[in-house]
Structure formats: structure tokens, C-alpha cells
């Protein structure tokens, strides 16, 4: 799991091992390079087109389509599309909602799932294997099979807040956060990681009189940076991108997240340039995060392929 994705040694097979590290990195074969660059264009150009078009008026976007200008920041560039987004929908509210929901889901998810995994990995009690296998069994159930019964169910659940006791969670923050906090896969990832930390640490601390919660907080969690990063990333992406669930449970604008917001924005018959400006604003922050923490992102995805 903690393997880095440093490129393996396939092209170095015919060289002696000792020379591999010293060997200068080569460019590779020319056809291979051309192939890689073409693929870069296939994956990169649509996104570049999106970002560039956000700065152009619609008539220019369409007149640029027939040339390379479609991907270049040329012509009448302005922030008009961006200001139009803010004029037509409460975009600031949408993005704040997305941030609140994602951050709460990630923070609560890391705490709740790591605590459960700690109990399963490092404490002995009856029924442990049963609980672990139930948790792993739920991994094969896709959320889509549960979404509609869950919609009916959350509409019946009770809630207690400053206004007193009430039933029905539709149109709230908690309905967008709490169903996604406890996650079988996160528990499993933490479990695997905690299991690999030497248990002698616990024993030593117990002898010194430390409680289990103390061991969890002060010994195991500080050693689990990589697992925390992985779970955070694997929780953040689906929370930020979630669409089906908020589409069903949120009606009011002041609770609507950005992904559902762009769908509503599209239905206002806005111009393509404005739509691309909105799309850029909810995409660029995540792309920037990805590029900044690339290694952590890639490692998280790679560890999601670890076979259970």
C-alpha cells in the first residue's frame, strides 16, 4: 500500500541492475513519445477548451471552433461569463455548501472510521470477526441500490436541534453528510494500516498506565499519516462530486451544493461560455489540489486496488 508509484524497470531489463540508478533518464523511442503526446492532447485538450471558453463570448467560441484558436486564449477575453454566473445564481452559496459538506464528511469520516478500525485491529473482544466480515460484505452493495429506499428512510428520521424535535431530514446539511461518514472501505483501509503497526507499542503504553483511547490518539493515529491522507482523499472526491443524492434530498437554493447547482444553472438556458465558466470554477480548485498533492492522490487511488 505504501509503495510509491515510481516507474518500474521494464525498459531497464537489459541493463545490469547497478547501472539502473546511475543511468541517465532517456526520452524513449520516438514513436512511443509521439504516442504519449497524442494521448496528452486527447485527455488535456477538452479541459483546456473548457477553461479557455469560459473567457470568451459565445459567438467567438463558435467562430474559433474550426481552428487551433479554440484552445488558445486569444480574441475578446473577459470575465463577463464569470460575473454572469454570480448574477444569475448564488454561486458563492453553492460552493460554500460543497466545501462545508466535503470537509465535514472528511473530518468526521476520518475520526469515526479510524476509531472503529482501531477497535477491530488492536483490541480483543467477542464478535470481532463477525463485525469485520459484515463490514466487508457491505462493500459489494453499490450506493445506487440503496439510494431510493434511503430517500424514503431519511424522510422519516428524527432530528433534534435548537428548534426542538422534528422528523424528516430532507433539505438539511446532515442528510448530505451523515449517510457518507461511516464507510466500510475506509474502515478496511485503516484496519489494514493499524494491523501493520507493531502491537508492542500498545503493550508498553498499557504498562505505563495509558488508556486505550489515549493509545489511539497519541500513538497509533500520529503514526498513520499515510492512511489518513488516503482516506481523506478517497472521501473528499466523491463528497465534492456527489450528484445523485443531493439532487434528490435538497430543494432549497441555500443548501444546494455546486454540482447540483450547475445542473440547475444549465436549465436556465445560459450561454455555453457561462456554463464553461461555472464548470471551470468548480473544477480548477480540485485540479490544483491534485497537482499539489499528486503523489498522495495517486497513492490513494492505487491503494484502493489492494485486494481484500
Amino acid at each position, binding site marked *: 500500500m505504501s*509503495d510509491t*508509484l515510481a*516507474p*518500474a*524497470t*521494464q525498459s531497464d531489463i537489459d541493463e545490469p541492475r547497478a547501472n539502473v540508478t546511475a543511468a541517465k*533518464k532517456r*526520452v524513449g523511442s520516438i514513436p512511443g513519445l509521439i504516442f*504519449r503526446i497524442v*494521448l496528452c492532447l486527447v*485527455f*488535456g485538450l477538452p*479541459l483546456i477548451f473548457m477553461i479557455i471558453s469560459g473567457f470568451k463570448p459565445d459567438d467567438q467560441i463558435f467562430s474559433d*471552433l474550426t481552428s487551433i484558436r*479554440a484552445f488558445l486564449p486569444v480574441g475578446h477575453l473577459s470575465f463577463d461569463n464569470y460575473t454572469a454566473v454570480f448574477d444569475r445564481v448564488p454561486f458563492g452559496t453553492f460552493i460554500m455548501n460543497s466545501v462545508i459538506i466535503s470537509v465535514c464528511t472528511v473530518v468526521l469520516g*476520518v*475520526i469515526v472510521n479510524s*476509531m472503529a478500525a482501531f*477497535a477491530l485491529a488492536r*483490541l480483543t*473482544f467477542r464478535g470481532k470477526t463477525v463485525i469485520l466480515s459484515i463490514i466487508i460484505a457491505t462493500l459489494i452493495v453499490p450506493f*445506487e441500490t*440503496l*439510494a*431510493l*429506499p434511503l430517500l424514503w*428512510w431519511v424522510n422519516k*428520521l428524527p432530528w433534534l436541534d435548537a428548534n426542538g424535535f422534528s422528523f424528516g431530514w430532507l433539505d438539511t446539511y446532515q442528510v448530505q453528510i451523515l*449517510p457518507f461518514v*461511516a464507510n466500510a472501505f475506509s474502515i478496511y483501509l485503516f484496519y489494514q494500516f493499524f494491523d501493520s503497526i507493531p502491537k508492542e507499542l500498545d503493550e508498553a503504553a498499557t504498562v505505563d*498506565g*495509558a*488508556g*486505550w483511547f489515549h493509545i489511539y490518539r*497519541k500513538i497509533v493515529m*500520529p503514526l*498513520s*499519516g499515510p492512511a*489518513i*491522507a488516503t482516506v481523506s482523499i478517497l472521501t473528499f*472526491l466523491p463528497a465534492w*462530486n456527489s*450528484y*445523485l443524492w443531493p*439532487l434528490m434530498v435538497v430543494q432549497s437554493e441555500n443548501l444546494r451544493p455546486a*454540482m447540483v447547482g*450547475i445542473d440547475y444553472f*444549465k436549465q436556465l438556458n445560459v450561454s*455555453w461560455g457561462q*456554463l*464553461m465558466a461555472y464548470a471551470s470554477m468548480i*473544477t480548477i480548485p*480540485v*485540479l490544483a489540489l*491534485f*497537482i499539489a498533492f499528486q503523489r498522495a492522490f*495517486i497513492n490513494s487511488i*492505487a491503494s484502493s*486496488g489492494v*485486494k481484500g
Partner: protein
Amino acid sequence: MSSTLESRSADVPSIPAPHQLGSRRAPSQKRAAAWMLAPAAVLLVTFVLIPIALTFALAFTDSKLVSPQPIRFIGFDNFTRIFADATFWKSLRNTVVFAVFVVPLQAGFALGLALLINTKIKGVNFFRTIYFLPVVTSMVVVAILWTFLYQPNGLINSLLLKIGIHGPDWLGDTHTALAAIIFMSIWQNVGFHMVIWLSGLQTIPSSLYEASSLDGASTWQNFKWVTWPGLKQTRTFILITITIAALALFTQINIMTQGGPLDSTSTVVYQAVRAGFQQQQTGYASAISLVFFVIVLMVSLVQRFLTRDKDQVR
């Protein structure tokens, strides 16, 4: 919360000295375990286990999302309705077609990409980053962007016109709509499985490649006898995850075509959402969900069985 913040900033975690640990006696493991499991257990029961049970229970009732009337048990009525519904069969067919194309194509392209960048050459990190960009872009954004690209006078048809082809109205034509969505979905997701293949490739010990080179193996022989068998576990995992995700197709459909034209892109989950959310027929939607769940379960069991069987023969 403070614990997670601390742990992130602690680069070199140190074991606290004994005097910092206090002199409290350790409570029994059982009690500690119960407290630590409780939050996750309550949430998993409320939002996973009970909904699973509800899927089974509500599928046999006429329950509505909001209704003052009590729920009635109606036996298999929902299922007879589903199986008599031509739109459902069309949706099931589209879902299966989508999966049949996406699973091999996406897994294959992803493996190709992984092999292409699993080398020690200059700029390989750059290429990996670019191929991965669509994965971190939300499917909602990708679907809206490609709706634009697929317009009759959009970017794709403008490019095709340059080489003399009059492109169709991709999303408005019953013959091309599903194919267009298949292509876009692979474009968005292939980087994800590229990374999973890559991590699989890196578990193959390089000594195996060295040994086969000594025997004078060609690139193809290397792939056939070293790489492919070494990817056995990764292969099963990738097949099952792509299949389940493909069968759950919804977002692209809801944004790009709303199931149209003429139901040519409607899917099982899209029908379930239409029934349970737009029409508020929770019972009927639960029945569709149950059918969907049984399909997913069967497909992943069959796949697991097939991949296991083949490996034994080999």
C-alpha cells in the same frame, strides 16, 4: 478532530514518554471497543444495513415517498409491473450494452496506458498527471463539457468537418447517443484504472523480467508469460469494479440525454430514480433497485467464478 490535525503535522512521530501518558488505569478492552465502534456501528446500521433491509421490504409494498395512507403489502405486483414495462427492458438492454462495451474497452485502454508509462523515461510523471486529469474532474462537469463538444455544431463535428465528415447530432440520434456516452465515460474514467494497473505492475518482481530476458524472451513473450500472469489479482479487481460502476450508470444520462432520444439511453438506475424520486413511488423504485442489486450480485459472482476457474486451468 485535534488528533487528526496533530497527526498530519507530525512528520516524525515520537512515542510519548511514560510520564506524559498519565497514570489512569486502562479500562477493559471490551468497554473501550464498544465505545470506539459505536459511532461507526450506529451510522452503518442506519444508512447501510437498514436501507438494505428496506430495499427488500418496500419492494413488496405500495409505499409512496410522502403519503398519509398506511403502507400496503402487495406481493409481487411491483415485479409483474416491472417485467411488463417495455421501458424497463429497454433500459436494462442499454445498461447491459453500456457495460459490455465499457468493461473490456476501459480495462484494455487502461492497461495500455499503464504499460506505456511504466517505464523509466523522461517526463513520465507529466504524462501520468495529464492522463489522470479527467478522473479528478467531476462526472457532472465532464458530462456538461461533452454535451457542448457533442453539439451538432460543436467542437467534435467542426474537427470532423475538416477531414470531410459530416458528423451526426451525437446525443440527439438514437444510433449514436449511447455510443457517445460510452466514449465519454471511458475518457473520464480510464486514468483511474490506469493507476490501479500500474500498482499491479509494480508488484511484479523485476527479477522475473531479468530471468526471462536471459532466456531471450521478446517483449510480447515477456508480457504473455510474466506481466499477464502477474496481474491476476489486479485483473479480477478491475473487472468487478468497472462492471459494477458501469451497471450503475446514471449521472451522464441525467445530465446529457434524460434517457432520450426515445429511451435509447435510459438505464436501470435512471428508471429507479424516476420512479422513486420524480414520481415518488418508493415501493416500485425499491423493486427496481432490488432487481438491479440481484443483477450486480450475479454478475460479480459469475465474474469471480470465471476468473478463478481460468486460473486453475492454466
